[in-house]
């Protein structure tokens, strides 16, 4: 699949989503346009964009895009690191309030350094502790940012 085709699917699906929920909103009249008019217009424009890019993307792909079509293995390899980071960040968001900033951020940095950056466990731990405590002091004490206290009540 070419990049333009992938983008066209994103536009089309967003357009479908927008259209489906916009038609449920009041449309009003020309002298008093309702809340549905603007979103439905945009959804239609997105649907048109999606269809147009799907057609153009197909043509472009047939003509020139051998280089653009990376092998499946390359794609998976390239995606591995970003996927790990997204997963770890999602986990941080889930535990952020309950664990508190100090614990959550230290764990977050540790997992990233150990699993993604491939530092040794001791180095990762030391770096994570310094960054976690240092950033907590910087944000909480110097910038007066309100951070969740969580387990350590700090």
């Amino acid at each position, binding site marked *: 699949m070419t990049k333009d085709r992938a983008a066209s699917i*994103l536009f089309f699906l967003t357009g479908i989503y927008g259209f489906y929920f916009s038609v449920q909103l009041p449309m009003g009249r020309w002298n008093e346009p309702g*809340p549905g008019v603007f979103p439905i217009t945009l959804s239609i424009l997105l649907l048109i964009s999606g269809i*147009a890019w799907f057609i153009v993307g197909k043509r472009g792909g047939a003509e020139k895009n051998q280089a653009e079509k990376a092998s499946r293995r390359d794609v998976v390899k390239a995606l591995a690191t970003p996927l790990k980071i997204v997963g770890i960040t999602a986990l941080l968001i889930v535990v952020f309030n309950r664990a508190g900033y100090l614990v959550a951020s230290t764990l977050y940095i540790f997992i990233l350094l150990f699993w993604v950056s491939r530092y040794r466990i001791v180095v990762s731990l030391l770096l994570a502790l310094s960054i976690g405590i240092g950033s907590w002091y910087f944000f909480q004490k110097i910038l007066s940012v309100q951070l969740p206290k969580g387990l350590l009540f700090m």
Partner: protein
Amino acid sequence: MDVFSNLAQGFQTALSLQNVYLCFIGCLWGTMVGVLPGIGPLAGITLLIPATFGLDATGAIIMLAGIYYGAMYGGSTTSILMNVPGESASVVTCIDGYQMTLKGRGGAALFISAWGSFLGGTLSIIGLMLLAPTLADFAMKFGPPEMFAVLLVAFVLLGSLGSGSFFRTMPMVFIGLLVGTIGMDPLTGSLRFTHNVPDLYDGIGLLPVAMGAMGVGEILIATEESLLRIIHKVKLRELLPTRDELRASWGPIFRGSGIGFVIGLLPGSAHVLSSFVSYMAEKRLAKRPEEFGSGRIEGVAGPETANNAASGSAMIPFLSLGIPTGPAPAVMMIALLIHGIAPGPLFISKNPHVFWGLIASMYLGNVMLIILNLPLVGIFISLLRIPFRILFPVILLICLVGTYSVNTSTFELAVLLLFGVLGYFIRKMKYDMAPLILAMIIGPTMELSLRQALMRSDGSFSIFWESPITMILIGVSLLLLVWNVYRGIRPTKASWEKALEEGK
């Protein structure tokens, strides 16, 4: 004379001990975020927003603006010494700047870049000082139809000046506008796309979207690439350019100032575009254009001046019309709103101390930046010795805390991550996220203006060609639309357009 007396009052405000300190902190932090690849002015500004809560609006905007133009100065350092753009506007500086470093002229490139940034920045502040109050006075006459027409021009320009083609940019604009409709409708109170989630009732916040798309998305892309980088050392005595280099730089610096100032007024990735246009202009004007790419000082002087001039003029539509032209000015607008001040036509007349204090601080900030960026360049370069393997978790943490700190909401962290993933894929597909963010900010005002105008005219579209202002603006947007469609389907493109697409 009015301008000078206002400016004198502005200097009184800016030269208070607290504001000088805030300006310095902003410039220092801006240079640091500009130097470090992966953290741009957007993340830099967002992170310091909570630190402004205890300040007055003048102090807050002085510090945040310092970060914005400071990042433009800092961005060139990594481009010249490492071939890695610290900031997106410095992409084009890599071409000749790094070649100069390889020839042992990196110091001279840094000097000319800082000097050009200083001149471009200062000239654009003069333009901002003269133009913004006039534009604001003119915009006072605007009602909903005029505002709609201005925004229509802005959107068509956004399509034509984005870093991709018009047909690539417009779908991103439509998505941004659609995202901007999420939440409670301001006229009827109907809930749109909220799916009974209370966190969505006020709409999706700009900060998590912008930080996710530009900050987290950028990191996800960067972690795919090799993280090993070579840093070249520069000694202080190597900073002095030769007489020939100085002579060759004057023209590009002044042309870059003009190009940057004009492009900075337009919505889109103005500072990125201005540096590309300036580079192509210098190449075209050069006696030996084939030498560009092998270390020409003109290839550094023009673009670096242009992106600084653009950052100054980008403040004009933001302060006098309330229309931010890029993600960073949009975040500054949010910071002002948090302090109870709404940028727009009434901003300057209602808050002269804030506006003139800001202007005066920008003169001051430019002087601070040239001092920070020349003799102290070695200190900033030492920041680059931190391995990216350590730096990226810290940058992610900064994005997360910056987002959380504004509303202490984990829902916004989820939005940040979602838009980070979206930004990653969008960039992979060679589309630009900046139009989406801008459309999301300006969209609600555009929709409101359209609906108010139609209500006022009892449903008649003739309201849009009743006043000369709307007629001209709608005519301009139609002409631009036709030109864009033609440009999108014609086979040949201008050299700067090709360069911009290759650079992306």
